């Protein structure tokens, strides 16, 4: 800096270009990030408005037949009616609660079973070799069909839906837990062994933490599966639940009702996804946070 000030070459000094300070660079980068975020959000809103607008316009003008394909205003109205006046099978909140309970129960039982079985089989080569063929077979069966069996065996109550949700969740979580255990770093296990860890300590302090990212990844997907299990179970035969709501709406040719129930389920899934992400962030706080790119 001082060198430049003392330099005799006048022509170059004529146009002193301020060198931006660190703070200025940071402020600029922050502003750019913010501008980009705003752009993304406004584009998202624009797309939503455009799709809903075209749909609504089509329905109003008769280009899209609202009897078959519903309309945004009709769906909103249906949700409003359900919320304020209740559904044909009772209060909407009860329906949501029932479905949520089946989903969450099925999710936890299925996930716990999947994690335990995945770790046991992942740690035991003989068991893994023996059972892998059966798991492959069970995994290739379209499991939704089992819903019919569960309704016959467990009745129209909650148990059959929970069972279907468990089956849906179990295999996804199991496969990931198993893979996670298998991918655990050999050197890390050997290190723990030499440091003095017993097989049980190795499982709890090396295997499970290293399989955790795999397991958590599967939990995201499998909550959706649990929801599918519960809803399909209700669809096949139930006394309460959002799935039954869909089945009833279908029976009455009420397209608005089907879409309305769909939106309720989507909101449910998103809320639960949010909670799973919270748990995940707590469990894997040791993972590196990537630097955001500068430009």
């Amino acid at each position: 800096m001082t060198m430049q000030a003392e330099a005799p070459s006048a022509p170059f000094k004529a146009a002193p270009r301020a060198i931006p300070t660190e703070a200025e660079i940071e402020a600029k980068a922050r502003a750019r990030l913010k501008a980009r975020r705003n752009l993304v959000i406004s584009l998202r809103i624009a797309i939503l408005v455009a799709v809903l607008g075209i749909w609504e316009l089509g329905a109003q003008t008769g280009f899209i037949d609202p009897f078959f394909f519903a309309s945004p205003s009709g769906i909103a109205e249906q949700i409003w009616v359900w919320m304020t006046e209740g559904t044909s099978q009772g209060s909407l909140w009860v329906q949501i609660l029932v479905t949520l309970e089946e989903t969450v129960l099925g999710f936890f039982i299925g996930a716990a079973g999947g994690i335990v079985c995945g770790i046991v089989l992942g740690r035991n080569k003989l068991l893994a070799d023996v059972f892998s063929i059966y798991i492959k077979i069970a995994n290739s069966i379209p499991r939704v069909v089992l819903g019919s069996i569960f309704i016959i065996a467990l009745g129209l109550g909650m148990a059959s839906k929970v069972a279907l949700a468990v089956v849906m969740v179990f295999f996804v979580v199991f496969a990931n837990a198993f893979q996670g255990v298998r991918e655990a770093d050999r050197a890390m296990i050997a290190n723990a062994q030499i440091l003095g860890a017993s097989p049980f300590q190795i499982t709890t302090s090396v295997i499970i933490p290293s399989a955790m990212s795999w397991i958590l990844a599967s939990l995201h997907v499998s909550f959706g599966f649990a929801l599918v299990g519960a809803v399909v179970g209700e669809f096949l035969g139930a006394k309460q639940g959002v799935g039954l709501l869909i089945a009833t709406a279908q029976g009455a040719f009420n397209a608005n009702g089907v879409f309305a129930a769909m939106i309720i389920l989507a909101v449910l899934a998103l809320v639960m996804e949010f909670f799973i992400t919270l748990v995940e962030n707590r469990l894997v706080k040791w993972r590196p946070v990537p630097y955001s790119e500068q430009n």
Partner: protein
Amino acid sequence: MSLQAVADVRPPIMPAAVLSPAIELNNVTRRFLTPNGKSMTALRDFTMSVDRGEFACVVGPTGCGKSTTLNLVTGLAKPSAGEVRVMGGPVDGIHKDVGFVFQADALFPWRSVLDNVAAGPLYRGLPRKTAYEKARDWIARVGLSRFENHYPHQLSGGMRKRVALAQTFINEPKILLMDEPFSALDVQTRTNMQDELLDLWSGSGASVVFVTHDLEEAVALADKVYVLTAGPATVKSVYHIDLPRPRVMEEIRYDTAFVEKCRIIWNDLREEVQIGQQRTLETGH
């Protein structure tokens, strides 16, 4: 602790009659079954003995089976023939006096530096308080007190190696096995880590087997250098390195005695390296 005093404390290399060697491999052969069912010999008729408190380096061409020797001493691998003895007894599972520093990063990424270093004592059933006190002490010894609560991914490669050293030394191993521990580090960091290692070792009285493909590293660190043949590995020759201790890594490289030793051993090693490379070119692995 003055270095001279430490050097005096370290037991001199004793004749075998007084104490059994820390590590003995007698005519050991180790065969593998490759996935396609062929048997491959990694070690053949391998004999080696490391006295208590002695620093032995094993050098040989890449892929000749150097690491196998270490796995045999830990008990993670069993010899196909011959005998492995540790502290006078046959190897039966993992010996509690053995410590191992890996080539790859073997720290637990989900544990902080403190928890990583405390892992050994906790595994071995020490009370939490004692284990963490000990861990803090060892972290201080490797100069990382400020980083106790950092996770491994927040540290540089050299710092992670320091944590690995603390993690190993905290168990006070009488036998220290090192499998090319510094090969992934840059040259300056490596020199620092070699000094650090010699410093930690000189206070411990442990016997070391240090596997490396870097001949200069071997000569600079060791009391004794084993040169292995291209695989299947067997001992080609043994050199005693009588350079005075304490040694300083930055300076020893320019010592004429050191350079001369390196030259002599390299003449021996070069042949094997050439055989190894020739074989790699012919077989493709």
